């Protein structure tokens, strides 16, 4: 016997809710487990927790509020699937409703048990495909990180160490020669070798931050903040970081570190901020990372996929990274001309 479907129905209208519930009971045996939140706020919390199979957002009157609920829930970690139910065809959906992540739309006037059941089946199939796609994306990201780590390790342990050894050897040689000219030439070679060493080392750090493995996320973020301050002295960085030691899994550490790096990159490239606050907090079961700046904000997209379609992959990828470790990814930003409204990026991941 199949497990009953868990369905959340968001509907202000009692009569319409009763109609939908009755139709659903006629669709399924065993009957579905239905839940109805008392407010949109409660609905948002439930949807973000992602404990239902399907979310039915029914809007007798307030289409805008339901659209907003869909958008908010999806940007805060809900994976859907979401079905909109409208009273009649006169209330047409706009494309942004679908861009907000709504998977299907139905009209009360057309609704039959068969149509409802077929639509739910379709969106569940779509959701399954998306889940598989997400798994593949996660695998691709993990593979890329592994490849980068391998490359970093080979560069660090191979050519970089050989160059360091040669430079060291030249240092000893320089101490034993008496000629001032020979010393000068040896110093010149050492300096050039050092430039190559520095370049290679930066590349290795970019590929895989060295502190992340042995010392944890907090130390790796501190090191990155140090490098950032050195590169961009005009941006003040204030960090408040809980120590994580090696409490977090490598995947979580890496995901949060990469999101942090992306946030800093965005701040440098787009925000024109003068101050950045970084906060890493660990509670019993969750780790929270927040990066807040005082720069120019931006208009949040309907979904991060919209940014990806425009070739802006940074936040899209950061969102994917958060999802891959079962995290919640939230961005708050307002675009206001000539005003530093700032952006706050927060990620919460279960430990």
């Amino acid at each position, binding site marked *: 016997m199949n497990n009953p479907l868990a369905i959340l129905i968001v509907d202000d209208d009692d009569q319409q809710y009763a109609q939908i519930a009755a139709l659903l009971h006629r669709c399924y045996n065993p009957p579905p487990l239905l839940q109805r939140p008392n407010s949109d706020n409660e609905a948002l919390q439930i949807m973000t927790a992602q404990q239902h199979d399907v979310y039915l957002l029914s809007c007798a009157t307030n289409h805008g509020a339901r659209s907003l609920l869909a958008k908010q829930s999806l940007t805060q970690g809900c994976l859907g699937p979401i079905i909109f139910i409208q009273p009649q065809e006169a209330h047409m959906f706009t494309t942004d409703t679908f861009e907000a992540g709504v998977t299907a739309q139905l009209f009360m006037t057309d609704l039959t048990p068969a149509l409802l059941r077929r639509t739910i089946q379709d969106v569940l199939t779509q959701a399954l495909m998306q889940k598989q796609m997400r798994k593949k994306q996660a695998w691709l990201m993990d593979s890329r990180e592994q490849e980068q780590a391998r490359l970093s390790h080979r560069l660090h342990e191979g050519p970089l160490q050989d160059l360091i050894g040669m430079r060291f050897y030249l240092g000893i040689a320089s101490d034993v020669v008496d000629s001032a000219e020979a010393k000068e030439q040896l110093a010149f070679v050492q300096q050039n070798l050092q430039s190559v060493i520095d370049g290679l080392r930066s590349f290795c750090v970019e590929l895989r931050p*060295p*502190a992340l493995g042995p*010392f944890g996320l907090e130390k790796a973020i501190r090191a990155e903040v140090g490098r950032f301050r050195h590169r961009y002295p005009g941006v003040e960085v204030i960090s408040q970081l809980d120590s994580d030691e090696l409490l977090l899994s490598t995947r979580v550490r890496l995901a949060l570190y990469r999101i942090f790096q992306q946030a800093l990159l965005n701040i440098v490239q787009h925000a024109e901020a003068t101050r950045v606050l970084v906060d890493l907090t660990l509670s019993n079961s969750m780790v929270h990372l927040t990066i807040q700046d005082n720069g120019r904000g931006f208009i949040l997209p309907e979904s991060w996929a919209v940014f990806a379609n425009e070739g802006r992959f940074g936040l899209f990828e950061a969102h994917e990274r958060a999802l891959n470790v079962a995290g919640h990814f939230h961005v708050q930003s307002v675009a206001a001309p000539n005003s530093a409204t700032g952006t706050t990026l927060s990620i919460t991941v279960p430990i």
Partner: protein
Amino acid sequence: MKRIYIVDDHAVMRQSYALLLQRHGALELCGEAASAEEALTQMSCVQPDLVLIDMSLPKMNGLELLGILRKQMPQLYVLMVSGHRDNVFIDGILAQGAHGYLPKELAPKQLIAAIEQILSGHIYRCDE
């Protein structure tokens, strides 16, 4: 003569350290290993005063070796070397019981200064 043991998987580094110690009147190379495992089997026999350990070693890394040596040979002085120069990295290594830390590419004179300082009972750290 103070006895120095070297653990580094790169032959060119071991040769450089050996050459440097040869030229020093009061320091003696008492052994060398290319891995932590090899070092652990030899070190109790050669009884060095100070061991110089590269952080990045194959299989067991330098930090793990440090942890074992701090328990097995608590009197032994340990100088860690690696290619990294971040302060948080250095703090982390010293917090785990090393007596000193030196970025690998610093001048030979600084390595000698670090060894001498540690052997005289002080912590050595070389910040950028």
